Every structure is written in structure tokens, then in C-alpha cells.
């Protein structure tokens, strides 16, 4: 399927570049509907990659790239399945998420996340599957999961460890603070910081540059440089599922879901 227009995302191929656009209001929260459409995309990716040399992932929503997992859905599962069963349900869901993330991570194309605004939690984890991140100057990154008594579970911790020094990873994970694109570039997470609204244009220019190189060579170089930490990814799921049934998590999610104030994205 060369192009697709879904409820949460769309894709198309333009001049050898696959563009995956996220557009689920309000902020591309990743729940079951997004997962289903990501799975469709991954199924199509093999045939799309034969005609392409790069993949760009971006958001068409003004507010940002992606705020992360659909916490309202997660809270709903706790209500529906109860503390005893929710971990089993979550594990099944996370196995599917990881299959998608791992496929994106390994695809034999150069991949670029073009991000702006909020790039939090699962959204940050999606960006981390890409070979490079291009951020507009108002992008902010965060792993806020500890605020809810959880850890990132879409593969973010092993991927962040792959890219950054452990001290930086500890800072981000244990404080749950957000940091801006300038800081992200300083620590080696973001490859280019561009003006407001310019991330997609810069990603297209970068992808066009990479089209000059032999695809097989680029794919071999990527596979050599970018290992996928499968054991740690499985461990991350285990730890998340151990933490999920705890009352503190239910209380944290309830507080988030019931918050009508102006400050849900602030710690």
C-alpha cells in the first residue's frame, strides 16, 4: 500500500522518501487505535522500502510530535481488568508495541524523526527508534513516567542508553524533567536544531542528501552501527508489568485523568 490515510496516521512516498504523518488529536497519544495503524504501516514497510531510501516520521498537529502513551486508556484497563489482571493485558499490548518499535528501529532505510513541541514518553521512544532526530527549537523531550510510578515501556530506556551516557540517562529518567532541543543537541540526542516549523523541511533536505548513497551500503553501515538491545527491551517490559498493578500507579493515573487544570504537562 503505497499510501494510506488512517484515523491516527497517514503515509505516502514522495521522491523515494516515505513520510509517516501522525495526526491523532489532541497530541498523538499512542493507544490501541494508533498501534493498529502502526502495525499496518510496519506490514507495508517491506514493500515500501524497495522503492525508497529514507523514512521521515513527523506530526501534523500544532501542539507537538507526540505526548506518549494513551494514559486514559491505560487507566481504563486498570478499572476494567483490576490490579490482578492488568499486567497480563499490558504485557500483550507492549509485546505488540515493541514489535512495531523494533521493526522501525531495524528497517534498512535511513530514518529521521522530525519533531516539534512536546516529544514525551512514548513519543520520545518513537523518535528514538529513528537514526536521527531533527528538532525545531521549541521541541521538548521528557520521560515523565516516574511521575506516575512507572518506567518508560516502549523501549525508551535501552534505546536512550544506546545513544547517551548513563549519567544523562539517569538524570532524565530519575528527575522526569523535560529539556529543550538545544540541550538535546548538546548531549548528542538531536542532530540538528532548526527554526520553528522547519523540522520537516530540514528532514526532507537531509533525506535527499542521503539518496545520493548506495542503499545496500547505507543499510549495511546502519546495521553495523545500530544494534538493537533485545534482552534489555524484554527486561523493560518485565519491570513495567511488575510496577503497573501497584496502588501508587493507579493513584497517579487517576490524578492525571481527572486533572482539569492548566498544568497536566508540568511536573
Amino acid at each position: 500500500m503505497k499510501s494510506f490515510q488512517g484515523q491516527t496516521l497517514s503515509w505516502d512516498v514522495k521522491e523515494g522518501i516515505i513520510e509517516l504523518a501522525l495526526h491523532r488529536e489532541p497530541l498523538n497519544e499512542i493507544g490501541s487505535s494508533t498501534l493498529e495503524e502502526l502495525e499496518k504501516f510496519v506490514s507495508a514497510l517491506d514493500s515500501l522500502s524497495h522503492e525508497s531510501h529514507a523514512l521521515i516520521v513527523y506530526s501534523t498537529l500544532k501542539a507537538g510530535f507526540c505526548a506518549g502513551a494513551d494514559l486514559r486508556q491505560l487507566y481504563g484497563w486498570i478499572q476494567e481488568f483490576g490490579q490482578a489482571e492488568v499486567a497480563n493485558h499490558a504485557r500483550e499490548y507492549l509485546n505488540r508495541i515493541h514489535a512495531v518499535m523494533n521493526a522501525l528501529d531495524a528497517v534498512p532505510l535511513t530514518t529521521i524523526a522530525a519533531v516539534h513541541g512536546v516529544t514525551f514518553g512514548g513519543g520520545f521512544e518513537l523518535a528514538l527508534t529513528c537514526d536521527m532526530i531533527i528538532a525545531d527549537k521549541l521541541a521538548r523531550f521528557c520521560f515523565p513516567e516516574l511521575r506516575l510510578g512507572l518506567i518508560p515501556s516502549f523501549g525508551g530506556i535501552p534505546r536512550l542508553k544506546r545513544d547517551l551516557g548513563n549519567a544523562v540517562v539517569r538524570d532524565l529518567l530519575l528527575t522526569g524533567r523535560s529539556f529543550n532541543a538545544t540541550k538535546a543537541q548538546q548531549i548528542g540526542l538531536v542532530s540538528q536544531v532548526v527554526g520553528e516549523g522547519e523540522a520537516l523541511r530540514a528532514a526532507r533536505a537531509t533525506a535527499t542528501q542521503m539518496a545520493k548513497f548506495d542503499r545496500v551500503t547505507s543499510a549495511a553501515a546502519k546495521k553495523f552501527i545500530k544494534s538493537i538491545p533485545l534482552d534489555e527491551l524484554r527486561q523493560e517490559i518485565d519491570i513495567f508489568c511488575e510496577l503497573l498493578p501497584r496502588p501508587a500507579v493507579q493513584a497517579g493515573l487517576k490524578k492525571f485523568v481527572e486533572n482539569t487544570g492548566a498544568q497536566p504537562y508540568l511536573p
Partner: protein
Amino acid sequence: MPTAEHTLDEILNLAAAHFKVPREKLGPDDDFFKTLGIDSLQTLDLLTKLENHFRVELPDYELQGVSDFRTLASKIQARL
């Protein structure tokens, strides 16, 4: 190093320009959520603008309980 008053003045100017609000409508002790009509996402935009302008890093947890420009300015000033 700029004075606290100078930092406060710059913050008010930046906030007015970014959110397209007349500068004279912003006071140092105003609740910026109410005066600017912004939510947490827009507050993060403001934080980024301030960090880039003042070349500081201000952890967002330092904004807990902060809702007026004067207190915000003191947080920035402490990082200069």
C-alpha cells in the same frame, strides 16, 4: 550580570511578544496562566524561549507552584 528587575522586564517583554499580548497588560505579580490564557503546553513553549534567551537550563520541576512572573524571574536569575 543583569539585575533581577532587568530579568523580570525581559521576561515580561518575551511573554508579551510570544503570546501576542500588549506588554502593558502584564504585571510582575500577575498569574501568567490567567493573564496570558495559556495551558501547560504553552508554558513549556515559554520556558523554552526563556531558556534560549537567557542561555540557562531551568528544570521544569522548579516551576511547581510558580504562577507569577516575578517568581519565574527569580528562578531564572538564580541560574545566571
